[in-house]
Structure formats: C-alpha cells, structure tokens
C-alpha cells in the first residue's frame, strides 16, 4: 500500500514541477518567475523526501534542509534586488 501511495505522490509532484516549469517559461512578469522558482524549490524538497522514504535513509532530510534554506534566501535576495536595487545595504 505504501508503495502505491509513494508512486502516486511522486507522480503528483513531478507533474507539479512541470506546471511550475510552464509558469517559469511563460510568466508575463519577473514576479511570476520568482514565484515559480520558489515553488520549484519546495516541490524539489518534497520529491527528495519521498525518495528518502523510498530508500529508507536519513541523508536526504539534511539535504532538503539545505535546499530549503538556499531557496528561501535566493527568493528574498531576488525580491530585495528588484525592490531596492541592492541586496545587502
């Protein structure tokens, strides 16, 4: 049962990544692209954790912690650069 649920979740998040990629390519404004990139980070964390469940190891949780941090910092840096023209004033 877990195997089926795991495959279902992996398929859903893979499709979600494709949707994000569509928005990243299409997005009329730069804000849409930043939002799509941020969502891609979050979906990537979900996929990594699903892989961690499938493999039964704990390594991927630490990797996804690092990715969560870099994703947040890069999104905030992008937004600040557009808002202020500078990241750290």
């Amino acid at each position, binding site marked *: *049962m*877990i195997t089926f*649920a795991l495959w279902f979740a992996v398929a859903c998040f893979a499709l979600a990544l494709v949707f*994000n990629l569509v928005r990243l390519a299409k997005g009329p404004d730069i804000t849409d692209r930043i939002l799509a990139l941020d969502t891609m980070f979050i979906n990537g964390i979900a996929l990594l954790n699903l892989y961690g469940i499938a493999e039964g190891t704990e390594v991927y*949780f630490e990797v996804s912690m690092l990715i969560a941090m870099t994703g947040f910092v890069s999104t905030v840096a992008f937004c600040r650069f557009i808002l202020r023209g500078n990241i750290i004033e």
Partner: protein
Amino acid sequence: MSEELIFEIAVSFFLVAAGVFGLVGSFGLVKLPDLMRRLHGPTKSTTLGVGSVLIAAMIYSYGWNGEIVAHQLLITVFLLLTAPITANFLAKVYMHRHVAKEDLPDASGDHGWSGYDTVPEEMKKIDTK
C-alpha cells in the same frame, strides 16, 4: 487490526494527501489569472503538501525504525515560517512594479505604505545608510 497496518494506512493517507495538495498548488500557479491570485496556490497549498510528506516520513521512521527524527519537523517548521515571508516579499515586488501610489487605499498608519513612503526623519531610530 495489527499495529503495522495502522502505520501503513497513516503513512499512505498522508502521502496521498501530500500529492493532491502539491498538485493543486502548482495547478493554481498555472491556471489563475494574475499574480496576486497566483500567490495563494504555492504559498498555502504546496506548503501543506510538503508538510504532509514530512509528517508521513516521521510516521514511517517511527513505525519501522522506532525512532523519532527531528529533521523532518525542523524542515516543516522552517517552511511554515518562510512561506508567508516569501509571499509578502513577492506581493511587495508586484505592488512596486504594477500598482501606482494613487490607486492605493489609505494605509491608516503613521508611516504610509512601506515601499512607497519613506520613514519620516524624526522616526528614524537607526542609521539606515
């Protein structure tokens, strides 16, 4: 009903819920018409989806290895904390680029809208240069 079956049903439930919420969030990102509406999908639904994945991972590691791992909880808390900050920044960027100051309603505060009005000179407590 054995204990293992209960764990299995719980993990499967959270995994399916995670898949549905993650898909709905990203589908909303593609489908909704403008950015202020698009913000809702990724910031709420996708965060809930990732949280469900991490809860499923916690139940899985507890049910099969008998140990509670704090990493998953840490990632969940981190994502729940950062999602509103990201949404606020993106909304600010959108307003900065697309909404004129004249179209805004009254801010009903002391300083006006942040990002539009500067802080009055006498209110500046720290040197911002």
